[in-house]
Structures are given as C-alpha cells and as structure tokens.
C-alpha cells in the first residue's frame, strides 16, 4: 500500500523505499512536523483525526494526479493520526521521478493537495484551550461542493 493513514509513528525510510525505481534519478521526501509556535501561540500537542477510508482514497487520487501530470513519477504518502507532540512527524511524502526538477515540483503539489481534499483534521491544544484548525465558520463556499485548486489554506 503506497497510501496510508497510520496510528503509529511513521517509518520514513519505509515510505521512501516504496518509490524506489530503476528509472528514477531523484527521490524527494517531504516530512511534515508538528510546530510549536503558530502566530506566536504555543501549541502543547495536536490531535489528528481522519475519515480514514476516504482519506486513503483521496491520497491515492493525489498520487494518480501526479502520475498523470509528471510521467513516470511514483508516489507514496503516509499521514499519521492520533496525538502528536511537538517535532513529531505528521506526514511523509516520497516522490521519485527520472529527473530532479519533477520530483521537487510533484512533491510540493502533493502536500498542497493534501491540504485541499484529504479528510484529515487537526485539533490544537494550548495551555489555555483547544480548537479544531480550519475555517470553522465555513464561510468559504465551494460552488461545486468540493475545493478547487487555489482554495489553499495555510
């Protein structure tokens, strides 16, 4: 399985190993980690939650989009859920391509798409409270019922 939601810490090397190809000249790896400070506010820990079965499908969709856009690209993505402490690894994306420019571009595309279409949510816990991150007032309308490219958060 190249697309996974994991309740356990992510083994980074195992994600990379999934995209090793004889034709590849580059593998880029993105490692998303839990940041302590956001807009000056100190996070103690995060809880990630997913609609797991749909999240795996949407990760696979992103992989497919990449493989259509960057021929011969190979993608693997694992996103962790549950409680994560500061510096923990939340997501690992590995992309291999024949040439390095494509590997960088495609990897960037993957993380931006995750932030648009994959049903995963994080709750920030601070010393004085907690809140789900995102536009909770749901003031962004999606006329097509789903986010378009360009509806980027963060």
């Amino acid at each position, binding site marked *: 399985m190249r697309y996974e939601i994991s309740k356990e810490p992510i083994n980074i090397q195992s994600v990379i190993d999934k995209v090793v190809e004889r034709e590849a000249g580059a593998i880029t790896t993105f490692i*998303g980690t839990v940041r302590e400070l956001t807009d000056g506010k100190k996070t103690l820990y995060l809880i990630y939650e997913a609609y797991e079965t749909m999240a795996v499908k949407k990760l696979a969709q992103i992989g497919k989009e990449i493989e259509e856009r960057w021929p011969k690209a190979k993608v693997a993505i694992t996103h962790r859920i549950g409680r994560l402490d500061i510096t923990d690894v939340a997501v690992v994306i590995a992309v291999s391509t024949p040439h390095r420019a494509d590997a960088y571009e495609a990897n960037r595309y993957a993380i931006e798409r995750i932030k648009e279409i994959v049903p995963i949510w994080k709750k920030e816990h601070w010393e004085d409270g907690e809140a*789900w991150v995102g536009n909770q007032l749901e003031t962004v309308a999606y006329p097509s019922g789903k986010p378009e490219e360009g509806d980027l958060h963060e």
Partner: protein
Amino acid sequence: MNKILFFAHLRDAADREELQIKAVGKTVAELKTELMKNYDLPQLETVMTAINEEFVPDDEIIHDGDVIAFIPSVSGG
C-alpha cells in the same frame, strides 16, 4: 436508511459520530436543512459533503444505503 457521519468540530457540536436517518430521495441541501432544524449543529450550507467517500455537490440526490459524510474544512499535512 442512511448513515450520516460527522467529523471534527461538527462531531463535537452534534455530540455524536454518526446518525441513522431516512434521507432517500432528498438532495444534500435538503438533508442539511433538515439536520440543522433537528440538531444543534452549526450552519452546514457551505460544508463539503461526501457520499460513499466521494465529494458531491449540494444538488446530489441521496439513494438508499448511501453513507453521507459532512467534511469540515480539512487541516491535514
């Protein structure tokens, strides 16, 4: 019957993860209106909806057995 799934702040507001109701023949928009009337939920009009794990527009018609999930703004990564 239809299973309705809530996540993140919607689950907190609804105080439940899921709900079984009969929504056959309704559009997603009609279901949202009905849920907002009967449960203590924040406004759902612009919340994304998935039926059977695929995003759908508000005019999509619900069939028997469909699983409907309301997807608040995602914040993974």
